[in-house]
């Protein structure tokens, strides 16, 4: 079936329909990761957006449900050059086509994704429609495209109720260290899933209670903490600060999430209260932006955002550069930063935008990128250890 991608500026791409049979309007963004389409699809930060993968061959290894970063795919639509007709991987459960259909996500394939990327790069992120209606009338669609916003999307993606993930008590539970992966043919034949290799070599978080505020958290944030031994309690986004403070956690983790941080006014107010406490806080992505807004800084929207797995970020405390996993459309404005409150801790080597803050006189540090990876480089996973160390040193 034919499908069309219609952009706000009037550009129309014709391609083939994939996924669920549905028409959508969404914000069109692109991601430059070459692998990890499933992690992208299940990253709640994409709620309210349709993602174009710049790598042209998508779906090659199918869907390995183990690798989902949340319970379902969140983007409104998927835009690819080509969808593989076979799914080749030893852990493959279903094909990407089945996955999209199952979860009601439509998409378009066979379009020139590079041309689309160039348009978004030059004109900035814009809204678009994916439809199979050959008789569409752009003039009619245009106002609908212009009217679209992601809105208060955090509330849609956060968990309904608080829940707890117990920390690992024995390193073996994490699965083998990546270098020590071994294959158990018999177990696999019986349908037992091979535990994924782990990078964690020490349960340095054992005994710590971490409160994780879920603004659309990727599963690997909680997993990164739990695999280091921390017990992680996950709270819905709108949980009052008082409830978290009352639970007296050793540390608070603010998660990633979708949308414009400034839409989260009530959450920002609660975060301000968390800031006032002495509880160590580590925040990622949206969490990082919300903490900045809660402490008087400002954020602005990037022209077309950072989405991919190849961005270099410099740790200003060591001068070291790490390749990071990124997914954000907004960024903290360092020009309006009060150094008495926070100073830049990480910077993007490509465009000099802020990638992290260190809060003056506080046990708080926040990053714009994704140390939990999934998809993307695992280089900055050490930040979870830094968080744990910070708790151990400066905590109760």
């Amino acid at each position, binding site marked *: 079936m034919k499908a069309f991608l219609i952009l706000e500026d*009037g*550009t*129309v*791409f*014709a391609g083939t329909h994939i996924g669920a049979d549905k028409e959508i309007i969404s914000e069109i963004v692109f991601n*430059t990761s*070459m*692998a990890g389409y*499933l*992690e992208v699809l299940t990253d709640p930060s994409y709620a309210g957006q349709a993602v174009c993968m*710049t*790598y*042209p*061959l998508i779906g*090659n*290894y199918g869907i390995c449900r183990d*690798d989902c970063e949340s319970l379902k795919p969140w983007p409104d639509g998927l835009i690819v*050059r*080509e969808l*593989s*007709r*076979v799914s080749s*991987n*030893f852990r493959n459960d279903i094909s990407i086509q089945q996955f999209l259909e199952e979860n009601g996500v439509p998409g378009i394939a*066979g*379009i*020139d994704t*590079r*041309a*689309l*990327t*160039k348009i978004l*790069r*030059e004109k900035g992120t814009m809204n678009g429609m994916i439809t199979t209606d050959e008789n569409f009338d752009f003039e009619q669609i245009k106002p609908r495209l212009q009217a679209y916003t992601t809105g208060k999307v955090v509330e849609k993606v956060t968990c309904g109720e608080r829940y707890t993930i117990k920390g690992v008590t024995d390193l073996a539970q994490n699965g*083998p*260290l*990546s*270098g*020590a992966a*071994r*294959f*158990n043919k018999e177990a*696999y034949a019986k349908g037992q899933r*091979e535990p994924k*290799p782990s*990078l964690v070599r020490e349960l340095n978080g054992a005994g710590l209670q971490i409160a994780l505020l879920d603004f659309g958290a990727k599963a690997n944030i909680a997993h990164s903490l739990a695999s280091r031994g921390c017990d992680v309690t996950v709270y819905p986004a709108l949980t009052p600060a008082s409830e978290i403070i009352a639970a007296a956690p050793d540390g608070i983790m603010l998660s990633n999430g979708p949308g414009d941080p400034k839409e989260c006014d009530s959450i920002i107010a609660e975060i301000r209260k968390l800031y006032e406490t002495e509880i160590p806080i580590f925040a990622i992505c949206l969490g990082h932006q919300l903490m900045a807004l809660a402490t008087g800084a400002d954020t602005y929207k990037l022209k077309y955002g950072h989405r*991919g*797995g*190849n961005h*270099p970020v410099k740790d200003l405390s060591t001068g070291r*550069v790490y*390749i990071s996993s990124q997914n954000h459309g907004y960024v903290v404005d360092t020009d309006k930063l009060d150094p008495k409150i926070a100073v830049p801790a990480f910077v993007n*080597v*490509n465009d000099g935008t802020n990638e992290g803050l260190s809060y003056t006189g506080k046990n708080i540090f926040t990053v714009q990128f994704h140390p939990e*990876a*999934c*998809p*993307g480089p*695992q*280089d900055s996973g050490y930040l979870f250890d830094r968080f744990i160390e910070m708790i151990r040193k400066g905590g109760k």
Partner: protein
Amino acid sequence: MPKNPNVKRVMVIGSGPIVIGQAAEFDYAGTQACRSLKEEGVEVILVNSNPATIMTDRDIADKVYIEPLTVKVLEQIIEKEKPDSILPTLGGQAGLNLGMELEESGFLASHGVKLLGTTAATIRNAEGRQEFKDLMERIGEPCAASMVVENVQDGIDFTNTIGYPVVLRPAYTLGGSGGGIAHNQVELEEILENGLRLSRVGQVLVERCIAGWKEIEYEVMRDSAGNCITVCNMENIDPVGVHTGDSIVVAPSQTLSDKEYQMLRTSALNIISELQITGGCNVQFALHPTSFEYCVIEVNPRVSRSSALASKATGYPIAKVAAKIALGYTLDEIKNAITQKTYASFEPTLDYCVVKIPRLPFDKFLTAKRTLTTQMKATGEVMSICDNFEGALMKAIRSLEQHVDCLQSYDFSALSEEDLRERLHVVDDQRIWVIAEAIRKGISYEDIHEITQIDIWFIDKIAILVEMEQALQEQSLTVELLREAKRIEFPDQVIARLTGKAEADIKKMRYDNGIEAVYKMVDTCAAEFAASTPYYYSVFNAESISSPSEHIDVNEAAGGDGSRKKVLVLGSGPIRIGQGIEFDYCSVHATWAFSKEGYETIIINNNPETVSTDFDIADKLYFEPLTPEDVESIVNIEHPDGAVVQFGGQTAIKLTESLMKMGVPILGTKAEDVDAAEDRELFDRILEETKIPRAAGGTVYTAEEAKEVANRLGYPVLVRPSYVLGGQGMQIAISDAEIEEFMAIINRIAQDHPILVDKYLMGKEIEVDAVCDGTDVLIPGIMEHIERTGVHSGDSISVYPAPTIGKLIKDKIAEYTRRLAKALHVKGLINIQFIAQGEDVYVIEVNPRSSRTVPYISKVTGIPIVDLATQVILGRTIRELGYEPGLQPEAQYYAIKMPVFSFEKIRGAEISLGPEMKSTGECLGIAKDFHEALYKAFLGAGVNLPKHKQIIMTVKDADKGEAIEIGRRFERLGYTIYATRSTAAALNEAGVKARKVNKISQESPTVMDLILGHKIDLVIDTPTQGRDKSRDGFLIRRNAIETGVYCITAMDTARALVTSLENASNQLSLVDIAGL
């Protein structure tokens, strides 16, 4: 960290002659690195014995030594030039080993020379087998578990800890005999017992078997501050078991999920961090296809063939960045030269798919085994880029120039299903064609995968291509079908063949429906940032969009403002025997010369190893196959003012006619004149007009006609196809039977042109390269071959200036050259081969184009031949350029070009020299004294004698006389001579002491025992006239080569060697080419 101010004079070690496994990629890396160093104001002292390289040009380095790459020579150069540092990681394994030897002997320390980049300790850790294994164990990175056992029980116990299957390798047996793979204890006991018995030391290595696992490579960079990145990863379509250089490789990996991808990426970074690499590094992994288990196969702490491929696949200039890191810069200080916005500390991301296919030399070695193993056999490779895998594969296939353009090109349709299943087990260069046939025969993906272990994803892609073949054959050709066929890069000629239509009709249908190639940019960042580097590949877009300009990355502004004239420089494709790096040298120099003359330059080429495909050589680079259709698509958008074909070898010459049809003027010698040189009748007419003699001969198509001509001329005769390079298919025939055999071989591929049969003339072979402006001819020099006619010019030792011919002959040659160049209306380069017999000079062959001797003659005469040729092409005259026409005064130096072979890499290849070229590379010996030059040339080719002072001679009867003279001279040098019966008799009779050894079939000790005993320096074995079919001679030569014994098959070569040994000297005079 900024640049280290103490680094001012750096010595760079090149990789020497091109051999299998060490090819043009090191010229590319070395050239890029030298330019990068010079950019930083560092003085570069370059040492490389290979004269065909760009890195040995005087504009690339400040001091250039084309000297043998031995420790002694390097020590001498260090003493003379006093560099403060040395960079050993750019010259392949050869350069690295030399650097390490200099370091370990303490020479560097005592001369205050620092090793730049990765330290010696790091190199030892990465290269030493045990050190590496220990280090990997320490950081928890797995290597394939292995243990040396001396009894069966230990073997069983160890295997129980690592699991079956295991590979068993007995120590010290020839060619790995007695080894094997054991899948269970019964097999283990059987093989182990046998192996322990066969092993001279009673030891067998038991190793976890990783054959069939996925082979994945990561190219990584690390700086002195510890920042690391991966440039890209690559997946071998052929699983572990085939050398990565012989595998079809795709970038990025296609079948790894993010979990596997990141697991191996993190591992690669851990490894280089632990090793403390500073610069580029390659890490190879074996990944279990159905688990997360992996093994580290190997780490190369230097730039490599894979890093060249990764550079071209991503646009990330690894060698350039490695050089900057060596100077002290960190990755975040080095600008990404492609985007000019981002920094080197970012990872390239691809929005396309890259396929590399090796170029294997089995068309040159008919007797060789085509099987692919862990020993690399490819001489070169092609790379292609497309936005889908099928298209990239199709493009790569037709880039090979091996008479293949689709998956039907090798025909296995006659095989039954059963035979096909059997054939699938064979791992050779035709495997993907066999898989295609298996799919046609309905063999399931699972079965194909089970046998080949090739991932289902790749098998499905081959199936998609097969399905398209079938659709084109069976369905009517709709626009949609055509569009889809073009999307996956079916060439028009293949579509025409399958649909039964004319190629012109397919093209018309495409143009009528707007199905045309559009060009995308390789920008390192998947369009995330605007880039201006003009490095392009083509795709056929599936559907139109409302703003079509967005499809296209090429724009006029990228190359200039349109005021400059545009010239198309056609490259020479993959490196193969007969068409090597020399033609890349010529293409690059022509490009630079055009650029200097104000032209906008456009290069089309598909070889990822070369300098010409570096992104900053031409104004625009199109990484595309060199077929008429692919070139026409580029012509359609670029509308060049002209194309130059005379620098790109036969690959470019072959495109002449097509280019003319496209309306592109050929710059330089006209196509009809090129034809006149190749077409027998036209050429005979020219020779008649110019009164130049040649060997009598005729043109034929069939064996019958050939025999007729041969008998008329009298044997021996030379048989060869026309329009070929490197004498492919050329043979000397001495009988009707041989004519029949050779004609059958030649005619296996349909010949568009007649086959030539000439009287074989024996004499001195002379070669000339010249530049002609249409009126005047400039001859930089005359080269003389040491071997008599009958040995291909590319395999002969070539001496400039010609040492043994007199003024009369030289004048005659200069005169003939002038007449031929004028008669052929040559504008640009011409290469002519002559035979001098007494006072007569005959012409053998005329090539109105660049040749493999151009780089070396340019360097030793100091005459920039390609540059002059380019200016002449543009209308300047030789006199205007400041040169007096005619034969130039001879240089003060003797320069001797020595061929270098890679026979040991190709099992079963016949090594004896003949009219068909077999060498893969060359080195140069240069000195004021002829003998010293000769000695240097042999030394540069790796002939480092004496070792044991023992040689074996076994020569045919006709050579016995010369054998006596040569034997006597070896005897005088203190060599012990062993000889087979009749040779020994002849030698002893003449008073040369020779010990008789038995033939292989006779009782021990035989000649073979001597060779295998590793006590022999040299074998001189001249095969009986014509093609030697005697098992003995072939076996002697093969075994000599495989045990590392130098083997000579022509008496002239033997004489040259003994002459050089008589004049051997420890202290060589060094020549700085840049100062000539």
